[in-house]
């Protein structure tokens, strides 16, 4: 079974590093982008199995990026990451598969990623 490929989109270098180390340890292939523009480039080159997307980013923010991404990709799961729960009421995030509040404890994130990927795999099985 191929390793699942995860694209981490976050403007914070240390966060990207932390996430990539953790996720690599958890058995994923990891790619990283520092903003929406770079993320789109990476996606164009190689489509990931899952995207972790920071909401607050300079330039195009996560939510706007998600809206544009969903216009031509309805299936690739996206996990939104944010510092606080402020965005829970924002209906635009419904376009994402999951929503995770950033924490130094990465267990919730890893659990969410696993769940989302399992779900996604189940949905694509009949094809």
């Amino acid at each position, binding site marked *: 079974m191929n390793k699942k490929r995860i694209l981490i989109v976050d403007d*914070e270098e*240390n*966060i990207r590093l*932390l996430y990539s*180390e*953790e996720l690599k*340890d958890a058995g994923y292939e990891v790619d990283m982008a520092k903003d929406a523009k770079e993320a789109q480039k990476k996606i164009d080159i190689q489509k990931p199995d899952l995207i972790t997307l920071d909401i*607050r980013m300079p330039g195009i923010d996560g939510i706007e990026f998600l809206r544009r991404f969903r216009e031509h990709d309805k299936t690739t799961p996206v996990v939104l990451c944010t*510092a*606080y*729960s*402020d965005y829970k009421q924002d209906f635009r995030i419904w376009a994402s598969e999951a929503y995770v509040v*950033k*924490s*130094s*404890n*990465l267990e919730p994130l890893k659990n969410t990623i696993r769940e989302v990927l399992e779900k996604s795999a189940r949905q694509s099985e009949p094809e």
Partner: protein
Amino acid sequence: MSDNDHILHIGRISGSRLHLQTMLDQVVESAEKQLGADACALLLLDESKQTLTLKSSHGLWRSAVDAVRLPRGKGVSWRIVREKRPAALARAKDDPDFHFVPESGEESYTSMLGVPIIEEDECIGVIYVQSKKETRYSDEDISRLEKISRQVAGAIKAAWDMDRIKEKARVYTKLNGSSRLINATNDIEEIVRITANVASELIGAKVKAVWVADIDEKLKVKHFSESGSDPELLRPVCETVVTLATVSRETVNVADISADTRFEGLDIIAAVSVVCCPMIFEEQVVGAIVLADRITESPNYFVAFTSEEIHILAAIAQTAAQAVDRARTHQQLEEALEKNEQNVRELSILFQLSMAMRRTLNLEDLLRVILSCVTVGRGLGFNRAILFLVDESAGLLRGMIGMGPDSAEHAGRIWNDLEEQPPEDLVPWLLDHDIFEVKNSQFNRLARSLKFPVAGADIGAIISKVIGQKVAVNIEGAGDLEQSDMELLSAIGCERFAMAPLVVRDTALGAILVDNLYNSNPISGADMELLTRFAAPAAWAIENMKLFEKWVAESEERLDLEKQMVRVERMSTLGEVYAELAHELKNPLVSIGGFARRLISTSKSDKTSLKYASIIAGEVDRLETLLRNVLDLSKDVSIKRQENDLNFVVRDAVDFYSRILSGHGIKTHMDLDPDIDKVLIDAAWIKQVVINLILNAMEAMSCERHQALRNLSFTTQSRGSGVTLRISDTGGGIADEDFHKIFNPFFTTKSQGTGLGLSLCKKMVQLHHGSIEIDNKLGHGVTFTINLPGAPGISS
């Protein structure tokens, strides 16, 4: 000239409008000629019918006219009058009744013929002729003189009638004039004076007196004048006749009191005439006029008042009665106006009180103004006053202010000062002038020390009546007091006082006590009425002022809160910056914490390094929670309750701070119930609550004052259906004025901090359906007690 000519002549004379005297002179001359006599004389009875006066003569001395007066007696003239028959005396001196009147010069005459002058069957005088040589008068002579006499009688009558008409005209002119004078005044004294004057001008009398009824309807002498050596001689006579007239309500006319039994015992020897007309208006006797001792032309004889005079007097009495009644009505009107003015004054006091209430901004000033109104002369005018208010929580009636002089001498000085500068606008003046120097007054100090129970067995009878039954009392002496009132009595030191309740919405909120210690004026019904009437708006003013003060206090608090809110607003602008900052903080924290965790999970390093890494991870955790709390406070916080051990949560929080606490010299004492029930709580939130309380306690105990004693103790125990955590510090407690605000969001006494701590604690505990209580011991410390409910199914 023939007889007829003469008679016609006399008829012409008497029919003419000549003066009576001229007419008499002409008649006398004519008669002498007609009868061929040497002299002729005419005498008329005066009004007393006791004297015959020579009115005209021809042949006698001129000086005799009006000088010769023949008192009723035996003389020939009087015989003629008595018998109404002529007397013809050829030799006059042979008649036993005849005697010369020396001043007339009649001794030269020998014979005389006299006839009575008769008018309406009454003899009014005598006319006679005299001759020097002896003459026997024929029947013809007699009949001729009688004819002349009849003519002259008619003429005299006509002249008298004319005189009487003239007199009447004079009297009525006079009466009319006096009536106008009397009606021009409303002064009873003036009416009396004019009445007495007009009466004495129209009717000659030595005594003139006027009685007038006072309000009590008793007649009192208002005017009394008596000419003579003893100016009070006839006073008893007048008094008697006034009684007779006012009882009978009719004029009493007594010709001679010495002959009247009703005047017996008055010790009056002389014959005195007296008349009294009651002054009656609309069947009410309003007074009486008395005239006594009528002045007569013949001083030797007294004469009763004539019916004519009585009529005049009655007319005067009638006019005077009307005038007195009108004056009295006027007086009553004026009294009513005065009363009205009194009412207006009361209204003005009340109005000014309400104005004062608007002007005064505190209860103390208001109470002072109220008592000033009660004590100053232009107000209610009591000597001293005390205002009491009910202290409901203590069940006491407390003296709030006392106003009044400390001594009689002090009283005099104050009232003198007031006389010198009477205030135009009373209340504003009172506001600016502390006339009784209340602040330094002993009486005020006394008043403020008074307190009496308003309920229970010790209540005084008076206070029970005033406060309990809300009735005003007027104590007129020690006899009105009961044993239970002795404390009140001995406090104020005056046996006569009054007390009126201050009632609002059927509740007595206090009372006003007044007395007149210094001038000893009795407290009248009217005073009481005024006091009670005054007490009503005063009570409302006090009630309103209390509400106002409460409102002000609340407003101040609100104002305080507003200041806090301004700060919060400023903070929320800052808050956006903080939120931004928090975001920026969050990412590094995630990195720090994340890598620390990675160290723990991946590193093979030594135990010490692992421990340090865990501390980093733990602290980052706490920082993350703190950041979240701050940003989540205004939002709906959801808690995730799980079965937890409160002891564990408490220990966890204290462990975090054990080094910091010991660094501040604070000793922690843990008294945790080992068998404590498990509870359903969000451990993170409850830990945050404990941490907040620890931080508060640390802050409180860190000031220098509490250097010596810095203890922080934690106690947990199971409590029925839940658990209790007590955290006690020795930080000196919270100041009273701050105490009730400590749970307000953003309230803080700290120079730094958002003030969110305690309000967040409260919110959290409430989200757990628990409660948080504070026991504040000022000067010692604060104990927070947190009660958390147990969950069904997990309690032991």
